[in-house]
């Protein structure tokens, strides 16, 4: 399986993603933002970080970068695109995913482990995954997902809500919502489930000695599903 990680100036989880993808079997390539074309891949990843400094709305400049056209084309032709953290923000900026990521409710950067519930397994990302709840890690200042009433209805109707913040038992109370996201949303799919954007970082939790090992389930499973 081949994957490609796009590097924008200011991306800072690109290496971590590269390490994770390779650990679980992908042949990964790094692609620079000024390149026009993306090498043939089964999966494109937009990594976390602060693309172009994120001095404007997060992800807005990356959403208009040279490489992004190829990402959009790839996605529109059904290719798998995964956006983590800043990558999720970029996906909303390109319009590939609906909604927006606002500043965290408590106006602080938050770095900690969170639990998320997998809401839909009928897709390449989570099909056959043995867990219902994953312990992942968040590190962001703008992860407060928001969208219009019509959009949330459509997300619900099409089973597009991928993962939601919860406790270790799967309870989705407000107290387990770290950033104020609408309906505890931590990640969403595109309509046909080929695009996934999420705030938590699976690539930071891929070893028993790290704060969790649940990212391993995510990547292992994804690799198997793409085989």
């Amino acid at each position: 399986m081949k994957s490609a990680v796009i590097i924008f100036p200011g991306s800072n989880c690109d290496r971590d993603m590269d390490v994770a993808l390779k650990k679980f079997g992908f042949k990964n390539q790094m692609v620079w933002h000024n390149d026009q074309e993306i090498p043939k891949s089964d999966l494109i990843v937009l990594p976390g970080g602060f693309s172009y400094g994120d001095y404007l709305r997060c992800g807005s400049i990356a959403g208009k970068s040279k490489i992004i056209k190829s990402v959009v084309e790839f996605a529109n032709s059904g290719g798998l695109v995964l956006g983590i953290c800043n990558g999720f923000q970029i996906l909303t900026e390109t319009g590939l995913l609906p909604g927006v990521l606002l500043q965290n409710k408590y106006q602080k950067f938050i770095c900690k482990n969170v639990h998320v519930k997998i809401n839909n397994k009928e897709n390449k990302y989570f099909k056959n995954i043995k867990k219902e709840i994953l312990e992942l890690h968040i590190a962001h200042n703008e992860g407060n997902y928001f969208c219009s009433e019509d959009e949330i209805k459509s997300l619900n109707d099409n089973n597009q809500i991928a993962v939601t913040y919860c406790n270790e038992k799967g309870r989705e109370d407000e107290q387990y919502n770290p950033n104020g996201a609408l309906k505890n949303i931590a990640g969403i799919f595109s309509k046909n489930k080929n695009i996934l954007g999420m705030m938590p970082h699976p690539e930071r939790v891929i070893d028993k000695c790290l704060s969790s090992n649940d990212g391993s389930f995510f990547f292992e499973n994804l690799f198997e599903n793409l085989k």
Partner: protein
Amino acid sequence: MEINEQIAIDHGLKKEEFNKICDLLKRTPNITELGIFSAMWNEHCSYKSSRIHLKKLNTKGKKVIQGPGENAGIIDIEDDDAIVFKIESHNHPSFIEPYQGAATGVGGIMRDVFTMGARPIANLNSIHFGSPQHPKTKNLLRGVVKGIGGYGNCMGIPTIGGQTSFDESYNGNILVNAMTLGLVNKKKIFYSKAAGINKPVIYVGSKTGRDGIHGASMASAIFDDKIEEKKPTVQVGDPFTEKLLLEACLELMAGKSIISIQDMGAAGLTSSSIEMASKGNLGIELNLNKVPCREEKMTPYEIMLSESQERMLIVLENGKEAEAKKIFDKWNLDFAVIGKTTDTKKIELLFDSKKVAEIPINILAENAPIYDRKWKKTKLPQKIKFNKDDFKKLKITEVLKKILSLPNISSKEWIWEQYDHTVMGDTIQKPGSDSGVIRVHGTRKAVATSVDSSAVYCYAHPLTGGKQVVCESWRNLISCGSKPIAITNCLNFGNPEKEKNMGEFVECVKGINEASKFLDYPVVSGNVSFYNETKDKGIKPTPAIGGVGLIKDYKKIVTMNLKNNENLILVIGKTEGHIDQSVFAINILNEKKGPPPVVNLFNEKNNGETVLKLNAEGLINSLHDVSLGGIITAVSKMAIKGKKGFKLNKPKVLINKFDYYFGEDQGRYIIEIEPKNLSKVQKILKDNSVHYDEIGLVAEKDVIIDKEPIIHIDDLIKSNKYWLADYMDK
């Protein structure tokens, strides 16, 4: 403009210093030259009050690749790997403008590290604020934490440790010390020493603006009522540009075109160019019209003294300019050939085709003033005779809960949750423990690091305090199973022109040195911050020690959280019950006098090394050092982390139970072991002549201390967890 004494004094120079400049130059300097002198001769850059004392520091050791004098120190961590690290203060700017002050402090120290060819892999910080009741404290704390996070998070370097304290002596002068560790291949280290004549001098990074002009001089002055007016001297940080600069520099460093490289930190283009030339025993010629400027009509004076951030100066091999430029173009950074190295041994500046400055380098560097300032010794205070009857009305559990919720003891999660501490994917011990631990990427090795200071002890008796803080650092590294290797120090003190403050400095340095020698724990880098004084009130002496240790197999890391019911809890090291200057004495008994705990370096070393032996044998289940708040606070913190209870019984020693539980004797650790391992542990301890007490057991959730009523571990968790969050957000 005619330069006279008054203008020199306005630049922070002393009258005698101005006369010395005129004598050395054999003429009066022009304004640009005066600016250069004031930048190079201020305390911050010249170390004129501290140098004779710093020279005595223990800076050598088997593992030391580079000691003080470079951008940062370097130690060997085996194979081809080395760690580059340093701590630096950004106190004055952070008080004036907390967000930018702290942010650029973090940016500056990271540049010091990647200038040497290392990729930064961890940040730490030591931050100290005034009393929580002081009207400025909350906003300063909020701003500093946001600034540190804002810069480090954007750079994608994890902030894995730190220290925060509150003390009214910082009411008018907060301390913000930032530390960075970088990883470098031993064979690919870059230095600032220029070599060769007619080599191109390259400017890369951000454009030069008017920000931060005279920042280093500001950092060498005491504060008065008009500090707000100094806001323009605080630099503005741009972490995004620094991230690009980091990647571009590392890309250029992978080739062979760099002769020397130096970041533009304090005193900007002035100190970086002079330092490179001085170390290479060369001259340097710069054409200031070539310097990329952000603002119009900048004068040579402004260009030379600007402290705009995210800039580097490089001496390249001839003919490599195009290759280098390509890299900086890729990263969208400015790149300009602004001069060359010469054989004149002078700094010569050209502007609009005229020579605007010409100064022999040795005058600026080697002939900078050195002062052997007068200092006064602090006598060891008399021990306090506590009235033990006063203790009778106290309950251990009640005192414990109070101590756990004190500003200086309570959890600092509110702070470190705002720092990205997991990016780079190698953090195996996050903040909130004895030290932060990161894997050396792609290897089985890990590096442990912590930063410590003990202003209360240093204030009571600087010599003991200086020793103690080095020992504390050593203990914190041992507490995660690492072997301590070396330290960096950030020496924060008051006004060196006052004998008392100067004495605190001299004796703390002496103490640091004694401990560093005995423990073979050399100082490889550091920084001095004097003049932490407002309206005649100085801070408590606060040397901050950043330590780095190595774990050869990261799977052997030991953590502090209590693990399993019925496991035994032991105190390693002898408890004498030293209460003076303890948290218990100061906060519960309201007694602020007395000597700090005695530091016995032999015991410190022996106990620490023995603990490492126990860990190497796989006999320790959890480990924590005993520091503020004594044995019971240490055990409680282990229990809080592990969400476990414990049962303690004071051993039959002739010490009052309060002295036993709350005393702050040095050189001690708490270990948790399995009952079946007790005899093995006892043998190793006896063979190494280490004193120990068996004091109790790990329990499920109940906390039972001697015969006091049972409490639940959640009570202690609650006491410890919320003070800071409530203080900041409620």
